[in-house]
């Protein structure tokens, strides 16, 4: 373990007693990272930064927001019109939520393509799925807070899903509502939870990073790091690369915040909530659409709800469904095609979720839902038996192909040694 040398006497004094600077030096500075990471690896740290942006803008909004059914809508409009730069903070927060999901979905699909969920990173992956679930709960409750028509009716539809649970369903719904319909108590508890959950996410993110730093990042080749020649220090190489990625991200976010701020929202949410008037189409936010399509594809309410939750639940057991020892799709000719087919399936489900549940859309929803589960439950286990992977390179530093081309298992990685 190389002890970092700090020039500042005060830093040395503190670090001797409380080694936070040594810790930061090890985990953020010299942290050895595979040198072949491509730009798809930017999205992890980017997601962390978006989380911070969301929490900061959210706290400012909370200072001006009133969680009461009679005042919530009006207080949001006060923020938009009378609070200094309130429109900016709210547009950042509202569009930031959409961008958060874009970033996280890319991060997840990167993990799927390069097999980042495989041993020894199963817990890292599962913690990531926990973060996704927490994000969805947080985003859903946040969307309720402006108390527009979609807020109210979205909350009504989604909370009603829990009534499908046998025996205790109705009681759970009453508990969620704090009464017998979506009303002021619902808004108040959603506000409390919407403020709480992001900090729970921060906690799980810390665990996610601890698990990540145990073995270090996976990489596009999906093979283990063999030694120092395969890695570079995180700083300055990946800090500057992440900074560049962050710049590109902020350009895109700003373009939407300043020039298309309502493009990802629904016009109905600018109509105050009215329990007596149901909107023509109740549509969730775009990031829930694939799951909404799966929910509606099943004719039975209980099984529809189960399928929707299973669509996320199946991700938890993914490391044990895909038994192929080769991580990266680069060396898995069939899986590579199947990955793109699966991504296509998810995009179509997103599209179907926004369509009314009638006619051809119902049939398509069922087909694409069936394929979603077929991919995970049948295709991946079978593929790991029958697929012949291409030859893996010997190492990251010297990407020379092995002769023979047989299935070469990536050796279980050793925990990252403290150098």
């Amino acid at each position, binding site marked *: 373990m190389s002890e970092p040398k700090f020039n500042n006497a005060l830093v040395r004094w503190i670090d001797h007693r409380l080694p936070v600077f040594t810790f930061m030096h090890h985990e953020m500075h010299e942290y050895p990272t595979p040198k072949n990471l491509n730009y798809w690896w930017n999205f992890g740290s980017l997601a962390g930064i978006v989380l911070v942006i969301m929490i900061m803008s959210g706290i400012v909004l909370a200072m001006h927001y009133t969680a009461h059914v009679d005042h919530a809508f009006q207080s949001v409009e006060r923020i938009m019109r009378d609070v200094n730069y309130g429109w*900016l903070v709210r547009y950042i927060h509202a569009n930031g939520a959409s961008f958060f999901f874009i970033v996280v979905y890319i991060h997840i699909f990167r993990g799927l393509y390069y097999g980042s969920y495989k041993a020894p990173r199963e817990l890292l992956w599962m913690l990531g799925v926990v973060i996704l679930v927490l994000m969805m709960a947080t985003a859903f409750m946040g969307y309720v807070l402006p108390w527009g028509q979609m807020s109210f009716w979205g909350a009504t539809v989604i909370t009603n899903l829990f009534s499908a649970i046998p025996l205790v369903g109705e009681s759970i719904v009453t508990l969620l509502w704090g009464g017998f319909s979506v009303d002021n108590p619902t808004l108040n508890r959603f506000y409390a939870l919407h403020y709480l959950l992001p900090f729970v996410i921060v906690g799980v993110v810390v665990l996610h990073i601890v698990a990540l730093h145990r073995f270090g990042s996976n990489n596009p080749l999906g093979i283990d790091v063999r030694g120092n020649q395969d890695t570079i220090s995180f700083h300055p190489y990946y800090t500057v690369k992440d900074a560049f990625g962050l710049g590109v991200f902020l350009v895109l976010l700003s373009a939407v915040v300043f020039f298309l*701020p309502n493009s990802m929202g629904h016009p109905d949410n600018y109509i105050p909530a009215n329990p007596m008037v149901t909107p023509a189409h109740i549509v969730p936010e775009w990031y829930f659409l694939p799951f909404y399509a799966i929910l509606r594809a099943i004719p039975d309410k209980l099984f529809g709800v189960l399928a929707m939750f299973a669509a996320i639940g199946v991700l938890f057991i993914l490391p044990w469904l895909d038994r192929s020892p080769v991580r990266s799709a680069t060396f898995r000719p069939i899986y590579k095609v199947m990955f793109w087919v699966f991504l296509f399936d998810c995009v179509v489900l997103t599209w179907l979720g926004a369509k009314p549940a009638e006619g051809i859309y119902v049939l398509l929803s069922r087909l694409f839902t069936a394929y979603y589960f077929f991919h995970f439950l049948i295709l991946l286990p079978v593929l790991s038996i029958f697929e012949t992977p291409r030859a893996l390179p010997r190492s990251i530093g010297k990407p020379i192909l092995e002769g023979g081309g047989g299935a070469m298992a990536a050796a279980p990685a050793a925990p990252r040694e403290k150098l």
Partner: protein
Amino acid sequence: MIVSKLIRVTLFASLCIVFLTPSASVKAAGGVAVPAQEWSFNGVFGTFDRGELQRGFHVYKEVCAGCHSLNYIAFRNLVDLGFNEEEIKVIAKEYEVEDGPNNDGEMFARTAMPSDVWPAPFPNDNAARAGNNGALPPDLSLMVDARVGGADYLYALLSGYHDAPEGQKVGDGMYYNAYYPGNQIAMPSPLSEDGVEYGDGTKATINQQARDVSAFLAWATEPNMEERKRMGVKVLIFLLVMTGLFYVSKRRIWADVH
């Protein structure tokens, strides 16, 4: 691999279809496509046309305000339209608002001040329904964001009253409008030729009034739009330069890797 290339192309195409079609053809819930209009506030550098806003305000004041409230606009906001403080005070003086309770516990009426919000035509929703054949005229403060198609839709609706086509049944006290969801609207055509007299001499055709009041409501929906776009241009220039510098730094720092 050709197959995966092909799939990638399909994927990209489908992404484009999913995310670009809704904006490509804006259809009102009525099912008729809403024609896109040229607005001064469209685009990255779009600004409001003050003359248009003042005419639109005139139409709102003379026509719409009889039934529709404008709860999120205060008299003081009219400064955005190019009125000065004195003019705003004069406009406010034309109205009475309820205040109180005073020291005797009584509510009282007083002339409006610039800090007051626009007085609503009805004291509550029930009164509004009672005065409008059971229909509730919605508040207009957020109309442009609250309707699919925004200002284009409002213009199409207001200028688009025609006789119902043959065979179309129109209910009692309802009016036919091709752009309105369900094609039956409780609001009779609110605008008429020369229904208002513009101070700037513009001829008050129905289309002109519809256009002006739609622009006014676009402003009322988002009074900060000009500031937002101005700031956006500066922010984007800054971010592009910053990102460029990051890219150059990244190239420099990574030069020795490989």
